[in-house]
């Protein structure tokens, strides 16, 4: 009897795992199906050195497979475009073009978001240990860096979503500082 119970428990666990894995797969599929995205964002950064969080807002634009633009409108106008391996920062009338690979501490952030948006699970799994919670209607991805270099800066990235939409991206840094970006889908502001 105890054996049968243990067996049933195992089977149930395995089934759950399979279901979760199937959900993750479906979410990835839904994410990858959206080739263009445009959304507003509000980001709050909680830095220990500051008494209150910093808030910035603007819009996000995404074009599959690898172009992501974060257009900040407040508190200061700045545009950051990631296209392929290039990071282009426009600020105060100046444009700076950086090589993403030269910044191992920034690149994985951006990659985590881009790979999620592209529904590229293998790439995501390459850099992070993935934990999936919830179901297709309302899900949470917990990404834990695999590489020691990234783990020194970031302890965890949490992405909440519903179906093929992203709702919130939270980045938790090792020093305790963290940021939370709320994403409002549905067209230009």
């Amino acid at each position, binding site marked *: 009897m105890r054996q049968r119970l243990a067996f049933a428990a195992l089977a149930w666990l395995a089934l759950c795992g399979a279901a979760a894995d199937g959900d993750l797969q479906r979410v990835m599929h839904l994410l990858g199906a959206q080739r263009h995205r445009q959304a507003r964002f509000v980001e709050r950064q909680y*830095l220990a050195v500051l008494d209150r969080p910093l808030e910035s807002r603007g819009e996000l634009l995404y074009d599959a497979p690898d172009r992501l633009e974060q257009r900040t409108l407040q508190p200061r106008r700045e545009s950051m475009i990631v296209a392929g391996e290039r990071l282009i920062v426009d600020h105060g009338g100046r444009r700076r073009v950086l090589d993403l690979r030269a910044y191992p501490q920034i690149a994985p952030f951006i990659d985590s978001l881009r790979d999620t948006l592209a529904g590229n699970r293998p790439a995501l799994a390459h850099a992070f240990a993935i934990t999936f919670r919830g179901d297709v209607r309302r899900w949470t991805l917990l990404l834990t860096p695999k590489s020691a270099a990234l783990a020194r800066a970031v302890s965890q990235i949490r992405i909440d979503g519903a179906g093929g939409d992203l709702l919130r991206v939270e980045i938790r840094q090792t020093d305790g500082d963290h940021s939370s970006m709320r994403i409002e889908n549905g067209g230009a502001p």
Partner: protein
Amino acid sequence: MRLRGAAPIALWLLLLAAAALFAARARYIADMSAFLPAHPTADQQLLVDQLREGPASRVILIAVEGADAPMRARLSKALAQQLRGDGEFLSVENGAAVSRRHDRQFLFRHRYLLSAAVTPQRFTAEGLHAAIETTIDALTSPAGLWLKSLLPRDPTGEMLQLVEQLERGTAPRSADGVWVSAADERALLVAETRAAGSDTDAQQHALAAIRRAFRRAVRATSAPAQAAAGNGAHLRVSGPGVFAVAARAKIERAALRLSILGGALVITLLLAVYRSLPAVLLGLVPVVTGALTGVAAVALIFGEVQGVTLGFGITLIGEAVDYSIYFFIQSGDAAAGGAQERWRRLFWPTVRLGALTSICGFASLLPSGFPGLAQLGVYSISGLAAAAWTTRFVLPRLLPARLPLRNVAPLGEALRARLPRAGLSRGLGAAIMIGSLLVLWLHHGRLWNRDLAALSPISAADRNFDAALRADLGAADVGDIVVAGGGDLQAALRGAERAGATLSRLAGAGVIGGFDSPAVYMPSLATQAARRSSLPDTVSLAANLRRATAGLPLRAARLAPFLHDIAAARKAPALTPADLAGTSMALGLDELMLQSRGKWYALLPLHPPLVAGRVAAINIDRVRRALGGGAVALDIKAQADALYAGYMRNAQRASAVGFGAIALLLCIALRSPARAARVLAPLVLAVLAVTAALELAGLRLTILHLVGMLLIVAVGSNYALFFDRHGAAVDGSAASTIGSLAIANAATVIGFGLLSLSKVPVLQDLGMTVAPGAFLALIFSALLARRSAIDA
């Protein structure tokens, strides 16, 4: 009698030994300084110094190609490490993180002396509030996140200010921690040699060191099994020094190869004519003596020999060999007792007049303000004089008892028989003259090539590769530049700061896109002192901070490290250039400072403005007006073009004077302007015909074409003089005279014909002018000679 006979031989041997010694010990260079003026204006002097010694001249661009990207990055790092340990290089940059970290530490430590934002106003309550607010705003951007950890020490964001201040144009792309080209097909390094770019020997040495280091780097980064075969990666280098070394090697190789080939062909020709090896070898004696004497004279007078001059050496084969040909053939069986005496009496005056004519022509190059032209003059004059002297005084004494030579009179007879009638000749001459003048008149606006690059032996492919590397490295093109001079480093830096203030305004107005300045890396002591005195004492700063942070999310209590750093900065000693050692800013400062003739110059290269997203030209006159008298604005390209135009004018004037001198000499020597005109007519005709032909072939004339024309007159004057004087020889030797001229002409055409096949532009230009020109000079001389003289 025997002693008198031996004296010239002894003198000759002495001359030969001394000349060989000087030629062997001479320094051979091949940079563009041959085409830079010896007595420049102040503006030109700056340009010349910049081109010869300036930091830009010492830069070697290094590319690692082949293999894969990670391997190239490893090789770049290994190569940089090897070269940094080599005393020949002032600096080696490859964008590796080590130097970036070092730079950041340096900048951070000295931020209050280096940041242009440091003014008394910045540390008032209002100033601090604005600065801190800006810094906090920057934190919201992912690109500004690195500022977070610096915030307690640097709340005013001086580090951010410095990063923006130091960003010059577009930084090179980085991959795997090293600089790479835009398309990532090569890793890039920049090395600066200790030696000046004009020191071709030292540059060659430095290049060899780079190649050695690369081989070691390949071995060090390959598995042992691979090491022997290499890993598919290879090295490419570029830069002014690289060009100078390549140009010298190319000219030396071409000159050597063509000299050997030309010599062999001429020897074959002479063997076929003389059928006597001793005669051939003796015939080369004046040539060798002349060439060695020429090089030695140049080395003695100028201290160094230009590659162009060396390439010119081959031309002496063309003219000097003629002397011995005339000597051998015209004296018939030269060894026969009376023959030599007869030659000396009848023909030597003509050869001497011919040599004097040539010397007259080349003497016009001597006063030229350009070392390249003056060297050609010295070389030709001393070489021809030595060759003529050797023919007259040494050659007869070296002759063996019997030297049977083939009679070339039948050849002369045959040629003479083929000459057209006098009337026809004159008609033909007139037709060619009119046709040529017509062509030249139609092309007169674009006769001359005004591009200095036309003379460069560097191929367009190599120049394009250099341009590609510079574009990848974001190195400012040598375009417009502002120069601030001063008696010492500090005065020059202060000048740079004053000019910089004006240039910042111009950049704001869109006249220029921006500029680099050495004062960014190394502010003058005065500026450093001013910045230091802008820093308030701890008590007032703390009070200001409390007011400044009201309403901000950053509490003054967190900024104790800031108070500490400011207190330390108030006591810190001023920075000197030595403090930059080991940072990439040292290279930046070094590139932009120039020391010359006891003065210091700060160089501020200007970036072109963007108009509607496209690079536009800088209005250098507006920059000049804005600067007033404080600093000089130079348009390097225009300056270089002006230099070359001056060089051209100089050479044209010299050639005209030379031609006039030749005409005058002939008038005096022949005692009849009409005869002089008859002698000159075929030469003028040959020059006109060749120039017209070159124009019709779509070539534009360079300075070497001009020198070639002078050579046509120099070589051709012998032909014309012989026809004038000996065509009517009484004893029937006219035929052998014509035969000797034909053979001498063949030797000249062979020598210069070979030059025209060379890939070195200066040699090619010369060959293409002189080979057909000398041939035509002979033909026209024969055609236009008095009919009676030839038919006699």
